[in-house]
């Protein structure tokens, strides 16, 4: 932008800056050629907030690979779109609702689900599944229990009512989230490839139509709140809480999909963060047009709302549509059927300006392109994380495998999440082929042989220990989880949850994670098609663990060719695929059993990942394995115990080593499979030079028998595993 003399005459008081930095306020004055009105100031402040402008992250996000033959639409639209064959497309995205969920867990989480659903059906997709990734503080922290219960109830309350099954997720606990929980929600939808809707407005003169719920004073300045650090007073910022109405959302989905089946729509966009402001500016901006809004026509829930309030309101369940002028009646008829508001609130213009009128006054008149283009992009200083030394496993005490396993299976991060997913309707629609409890959920597509697999993952303790390795690992873990059910991983969506980017160490975590993700995506041909960034996740200067949540989607061409993790047939050979050195740095074992959070995380070899994963996927496709599970948190023995519990079958193990590093090490690129024909499998592995070892056989006795150790009772493991979360949630302190 050219340097001109500042048009600013005076400074607003700091408390009236609405989150704009002084230089940004200056820039706003220069763009307008005068000082902004209150409404204009509000519009600048939300458009340039971290949440809407990605000012700290843009530079790095651009480096992520976003293309592949099957990518129809990458980042930049409401959600990503991939081609899944037969003229079908899959549309998906993940989004955070961290700050609102901390302030009001039920509504915060519920509206998070509502928001991500809208991002997906806005593009023409029928939502078929929801996922959620949750991080809470230490179980012993006084706030944790209420947050868990509120967030889970909110996600269920919304998803259950709209009739979209919540099929998978992940949940972790760590003291770094004590003052800042994370709630990341993901929606997967399907559409016809030739019926995808975009947000770029077209056709000056075309009507701008508002549909859905009425506008109230909800969540004004929510977008800027989502970009603000917390302090101990943040619970005072209460009026910004939004309340969701899943019933209206359900009607909105049906009405929008019905309208989309006609030819009435030019462009459509949900009203998310910064509501009417961001939706109108983005639509007009992308189309290179102007937009004239007459706010007197906005359906309002409350009386006396100002332009400022209407433009910034974050009332839920609303959409903005550019219609073909002759099709207004079609829309009116459909929205009347569902008893939803439908009002023409303006039209597109050739001026390139956003003009906001109310009560006969012009409350804003601002050029769109300069505002969007000048939206700041920072190159924030960053500092790489200090490298950590590997942990020397030989110096650790000898542990009884059974006791260590029981402790791990019942620890907060590994205990069963049944208490959570049973509060989610994971079956509605009737196409949930693999339910929660496995590596990835599998959801069928009506009328098709194929199915989609989906999961969300991140291992923040690795990212903290080494951001680049951790970033790569998060991508790789989703890839592995999809592979383990037999699916071909197609693409990811990412949710970057970090602390304050103005601190170089935090920015270093962000940059490192992106670098790792980029490498992994490239090596696996597994592009990023959508995502979301949530920064400033700090309270009183205490940042969360860096948490790049990855949502992965994979395709199963034949849904019947999928396997799950449960041990099945007595006598099946148990085969470990991948090499085990015994890596304990940054492992769960080290933290939970030895009480140490240290060491470098397990290294990632992307070539090995790809080779081993492709091999396993091939075995599943050929029907050569009866069960498959990837090895992640807790290592090999934990994975095996999970398989045994799921199948209610035991195992007799013959292991080359029984030291902690071998049993609980978190070396990557590994899977456990079971097969009736081990010989064939091993021969296949040998030709490809993939490490594969028979480590035991499936048995009917209710235990894991390790040569040279006391047998481990499955009943005891089940008690530890299933008991922890319900026990924790029902205890009083």
């Amino acid at each position: 932008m050219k340097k001109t003399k500042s048009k600013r005459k005076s400074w607003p008081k700091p408390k009236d800056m609405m989150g704009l930095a002084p230089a940004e306020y200056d820039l706003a004055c220069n763009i307008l050629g005068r000082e902004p009105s209150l409404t204009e100031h509000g519009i600048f402040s939300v458009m340039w907030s971290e949440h809407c402008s990605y000012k700290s992250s843009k530079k790095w996000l651009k480096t992520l690979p976003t293309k592949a033959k099957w990518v129809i639409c990458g980042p930049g639209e409401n959600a990503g779109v991939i081609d899944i064959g037969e003229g079908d497309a899959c549309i998906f995205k993940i989004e955070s609702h961290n700050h609102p969920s901390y302030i009001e867990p039920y509504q915060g989480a519920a509206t998070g689900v509502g928001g991500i659903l809208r991002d997906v059906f806005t593009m023409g997709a029928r939502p078929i599944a929801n996922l959620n990734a949750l991080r809470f503080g230490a179980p012993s922290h006084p706030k944790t229990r209420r947050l868990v219960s509120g967030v889970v109830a909110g996600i269920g309350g919304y998803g259950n009512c709209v009739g979209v099954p919540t099929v998978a997720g992940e949940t972790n606990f760590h003291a770094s989230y004590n003052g800042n929980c994370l709630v990341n929600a993901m929606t997967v939808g399907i559409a016809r490839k030739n019926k995808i809707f975009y947000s770029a407005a077209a056709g000056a003169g075309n009507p701008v139509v508002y549909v859905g719920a009425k506008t109230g004073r909800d969540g004004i300045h929510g977008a800027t709140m989502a970009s603000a650090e917390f302090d101990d007073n943040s619970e005072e910022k209460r009026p910004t809480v939004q309340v969701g109405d899943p019933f209206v959302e359900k009607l909105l989905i049906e009405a929008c999909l019905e309208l989309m089946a006609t030819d009435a729509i030019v462009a459509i966009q949900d009203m998310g963060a910064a509501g009417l402001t961001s939706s109108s500016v983005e639509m007009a901006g992308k189309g290179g047009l102007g937009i004239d809004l007459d706010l007197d026509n906005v359906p309002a829930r409350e009386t006396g709302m100002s332009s400022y309030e209407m433009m910034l309101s974050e009332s839920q369940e609303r959409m903005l549509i550019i219609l073909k002028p002759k099709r207004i009646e079609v829309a009116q008829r459909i929205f009347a059927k569902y008893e939803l508001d439908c009002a023409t609130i303006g039209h597109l213009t050739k001026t390139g300006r956003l003009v906001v009128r109310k009560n006969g006054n012009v409350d804003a008149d601002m050029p769109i392109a300069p505002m969007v283009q000048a939206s700041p992009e920072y190159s924030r200083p960053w500092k790489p994380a200090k490298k950590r030394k590997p942990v020397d496993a030989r110096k650790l005490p000898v542990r009884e495998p059974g006791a260590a396993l029981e402790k791990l299976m019942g620890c907060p991060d590994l205990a069963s999440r049944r208490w959570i997913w049973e509060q989610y309707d994971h079956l509605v629609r009737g196409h949930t082929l693999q339910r929660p409890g496995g590596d990835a959920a599998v959801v069928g597509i009506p009328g098709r042989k194929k199915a989609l697999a989906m999961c969300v993952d991140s291992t923040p303790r690795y990212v903290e220990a080494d951001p680049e390795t951790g970033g790569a690992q998060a991508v790789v873990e989703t890839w592995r989880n999809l592979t383990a059910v037999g699916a071909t991983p197609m693409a990811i969506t990412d949710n970057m949850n970090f602390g304050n980017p103005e601190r170089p160490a935090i920015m270093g975590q962000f940059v490192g994670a992106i670098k790792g993700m980029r490498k992994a995506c490239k090596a696996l041909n597994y592009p990023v098609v959508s995502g979301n960034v949530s920064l400033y996740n700090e309270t009183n200067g205490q940042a969360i663990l860096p948490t790049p949540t990855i949502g992965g989607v994979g395709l199963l061409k034949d849904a019947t060719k999928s396997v799950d993790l449960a041990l099945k047939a007595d006598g099946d050979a148990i085969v470990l695929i991948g090499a085990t050195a015994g890596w304990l740095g940054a492992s769960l074992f080290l933290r939970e059993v030895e009480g140490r959070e240290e060491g470098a995380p397990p290294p990632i070899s992307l070539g090995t990942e790809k080779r081993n994963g492709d091999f396993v996927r091939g075995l599943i496709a050929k029907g050569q394995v009866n069960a498959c599970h990837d090895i992640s948190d807790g290592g090999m023995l934990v994975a095996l115990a999970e398989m045994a519990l799921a199948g209610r079958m035991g195992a007799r193990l013959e292991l080359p080593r029984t030291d902690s590093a071998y049993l609980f090490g978190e070396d990557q690129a590994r899977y456990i499979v079971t097969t009736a024909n081990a010989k064939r499998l091993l021969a296949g592995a040998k030709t490809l030079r993939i490490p594969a070892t028979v480590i035991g056989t499936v048995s009917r006795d209710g235990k894991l028998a390790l040569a040279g150790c006391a047998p481990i009772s499955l009943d005891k493991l089940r008690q530890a595993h299933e008991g922890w979360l319900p026990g924790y949630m029902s205890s009083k302190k």
Partner: protein
Amino acid sequence: MKAKIHVTLKNGVLDVQGKAVAAGLAGLGFPGIGDVRVGRYVEIELAAKDAAAAEAQAKQMCEKLLANTVIENYRIEIAG
């Protein structure tokens, strides 16, 4: 001693139930329905020694459990 507690949504907070009830009543043919607000009503038997103590206790109960003070208000009456 008995505490009678009304928990209602704060002004401006979307009342999804109230909205649905208003629509339902209109659908049944009731004319002239204005604003409808739906809240909770809780009665608690307390072992407090006097009205003031009961009220103080009820207030704490509202703050800690009965009301979500982020979006709800509460009102307490004490009956002998």
